[in-house]
């Protein structure tokens, strides 16, 4: 049977609170960065705050909390951390590559080489606004 939160030792509560706030704070900062950074390539760095130590903090908080409150070792949160760490890069990689492809296809100058000169620059990805990027 689980203890209620009130019965938890204060040190544990403080530890949980600390990691919680660290984690969620990093997640928030990541989101802010995602909002504020000017180019797409910069923006993709920001959310990784949330996917790295953002998750780490909160998982630690959870592990501590449940280990203390249930009186046995709980660390299945580890799984979440592992999976997110392993899977998130896929999305980022694929998206960044897509952005690269498009910038090259459109001839937006400030991306590294391997431009495709045999094709005229054209609207390729029907979805977005060509003015920015």
């Amino acid at each position, binding site marked *: 049977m689980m203890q209620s939160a009130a019965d938890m030792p204060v040190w544990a509560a403080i530890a949980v609170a600390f990691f919680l706030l660290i984690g969620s704070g990093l997640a928030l900062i990541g989101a802010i960065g995602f909002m504020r950074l000017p180019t797409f390539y910069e923006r993709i760095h920001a959310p990784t705050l949330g996917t790295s130590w953002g998750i780490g903090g909160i998982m630690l908080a959870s592990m501590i909390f449940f280990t203390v409150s249930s009186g046995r070792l709980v660390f299945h949160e580890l799984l979440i951390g592992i999976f997110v760490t392993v899977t998130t890069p896929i999305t980022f*990689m694929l998206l960044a*590559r897509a952005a690269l492809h498009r910038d090259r296809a459109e001839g937006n100058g400030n991306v590294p080489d391997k431009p495709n000169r045999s094709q005229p620059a054209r609207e390729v990805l029907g979805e*977005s606004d060509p003015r920015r990027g």
Partner: protein
Amino acid sequence: MLPSWVAGATALLSLLIIAAFYPSVTNGGVLRFEGTWLPQLGLNFTLRMDGFAWLFSMLIAGIGFLVVVYARYYMSEDDPVPRFFSFLLAFMGAMLGIVISGNVILLSVFWELTSIFSFLLISYWHNNAAARDGARMALTITGIGGFCLLIGLLLLGNIVGSYDLDKILVAGDVIRGHSLYVPALVFILLGALTKSAQFPFHFWLPNAMAAPTPVSAFLHSATMVKAGVFLLVRFWPALSGTYEWFYLVGLAGIITLVLGAYFAMFQQDLKGLLAYSTISHLGLITTLLSLGSPLATVAAIFHMVNHATFKASLFMAAGIIDHETGTRDMRRLSGLFRYLPITGTLAMVASAAMAGVPLLNGFLSKEMFFAEAVETHADSILDRILPYVATLASAFSVAYSLRFIHTVFFGPPPTDLPKPKPHEPPRWMRSPIELLVVACLIVGIIPAVSIGPFLHTAVVSVLGADTPQYSLSIWHGVNLPLIMSAIALVGGTLLYLSLRKYLATCEDGPPILRNLKGQRIFERILVEVSWRWARTLERRFGTRNLQPQLRWVVATGFLAGLLPLYLSGFETREIAFSGIDPAFAAIWLLGICLAFGTAYLAKYHRLAALVMLGGVGLIVCITFVWLSAPDLAITQLLVEIVTTVLILLGLRWLPKRTEGLVEAISLRARFRRFRDLALAVVCGIGMSFIAYAVMTMPVPDAIANYFLENAYSQGGGRNVVNVILVDFRGFDTLGEIAVLGVVALTVFALLRRFRPADDSMDLPEQQRIQNSFDEDRPERSAGDTVRDYLLVPSVIMTWLFPVIITFAVYIFMRGHDMPGGGFSAGLTLSIAFLLQYLAGGTRWAEDRLRILPLRWMGAGILTASATGIGAWFFGYPFLTSHFQYVELPLIGKMPAATALLFDLGVFSLVVGSTVLILVALAHQSIRINRLRAIDAARTEEG
């Protein structure tokens, strides 16, 4: 011709049988046969023959027999005669049915049957447009009349309490005094008058003359058209004798009498003349019946018989003329007497009977008519003009009879006949006419002896105690009727002589009125109403577009939900702002924005809308967690993922849409948008309102408590939701997986035939660019880009495969006690498969994984059903679950519920279905490559 022999024998046999009934029906005797049919509603197969029915039956069977004999020679070898004779006999049966029905509903059954068979007979030569149109008109008019008659008879049943004819006939006073009398009368009259071609429904009869002549002789002179007046006689004891009867019947009769005769004079078609004459004579009978006097009824019955004999013979004669000369146009016919002396003579006698020449049967009934006309029945204008009208119509009748004979048989020999050498028909073809003409003569000369007893039998059965004294002698002294007859004969002759020149060349139909063709008007109205109006109305009150339909669904759904609340004055509880979790509120503020964003972006930014929709789904999922429903959250999440991939798979085949071209929005479109917006807003508010109302209502004593209490003790699971799904309400789940299965099959079947629109046929632009990039470079080959692109992701996605499988097993195993279960596990496993398709492409994945989705599906349903059926063998109903703890070595006590097996079935089906759908969609890209290749090959050939 065997059919004609069969038909003749049948008719003759019926005639003999009917004749044999005679002793039973004399002196008011009635024969009854009762068979049950629909006794609850008073509809029985009751046959009833009294004197009147007997007389009429004899007429039907007798003339029927003669017509068969005549037709035997009339019909050509090339005609499909079996059809003809079977229709004819069927018609005869139906007609006899009308006459001897003892139940008025049964009568109406036969009534409509005669309409149907007459339709088939008129249209016998259906490659002839006139026959088709005539038949259709006859059916339409008489069919509608039949419906009216049915209503009238139903009303009679309401008044009397029975459809039994005997009961109705004795309830005359009740009926006439009832408030429903007038409607009943009107409807019955509509039936009778349409059938008997009475004004204003007369116009179908001339058009029915496109029928073969035997049909005209039988149906349109002797029998079917008599059904209407038969009905009037039949119901005479029950309905007549009121002002309404007098005016309605009388007016129709008198107008028909005069108009028919007048029109008849100006016809150029022999059969047209006879048809209008028939109309007129039926008007005469109707007029007689309107009078309400017993004597008039006697005259009416008598005239029915007389008219049948001479008119049938005249039709047959006309048929012979047509047959021999090839035309019925009186402008072309002339001086045929030299070729057809016998037929000519017979026709002359019959015409004389029609004109009311003394010593012939027509004269007798006409005298009776005149005698009644001069009497006063109900003091009114109608009453007072009747003698003059009668005389006038009679004069017309003399004129057209004279014309019939004179034009056809006398004068110079014909010059432009289609068949130049007419001659007398075969002996047997003429004999029916001879027989009928002899009858005219005998009745005309010795009426009291010949027809007298039979007429009396008929009259008694109709009038019963009211049977008047009447005399059937030729000579009643010089009286007003005789003078009227004389005037009519002389006047008619003079009229004919004065019109002769005009008639020889004039157009068909009477002057002025000729353009007023009832038929044309009818058809115009029919086309106008039944076609143009209907189409306009259908377009106005219906739609074939989707948007209005959905608008209706939404609007009616909204009204159905809120109108009851509004009408009953529902008041919701006060809105409570307390107890709102700020984080939850914040999440939903976000969710609401996402929903708006989705709606806003769905037109031009599909992908963005999809992304935002995913966001909304995520918020919904969080909500489920927040509100203590982790099962729902997991399921929602998994469904969300699969749905997103599905829609993405589909997005490739949708057209590109760019915001760039802003179309000018018309005012109507703007209005429509505004209306939709208003509807959306109103529905949203309404839904909020109801949701709030029901959520804040204290939870009733629901069945939920039972589930909570028994899930563990009886169902063996702690996850009550799952126990409900696989046990308490496992049957729902069984149905639900059936839905999923059938949808997957549909998707599969539909996609097998899928062919994308032309502009989606090409490779996506990205791929083209990337491929050409690869091909341009010597060091690269096509496909390198994508290979590099997916190099890292595919490694990770491949390694995730066993992990997700393990996770799926985990989700499945814990379902009964914890959130999870077969459905979630199934979806998880399909995502594992999906991921491999994503990572390596279809070819790669299918090289390695042989998934047989259909087998998974079949096995799933079978497992689930078999688990359910298993309970039978223990004497329990379907799906009764069974659980116990089993002791396993090493593992210990494990709960083992059959419900788990059921869940396994669910799992299997979900995997099969989801994979089938995904794979079917994914395969399109490969298929299109093939299609493209085929197209390319075709273009090269062409």
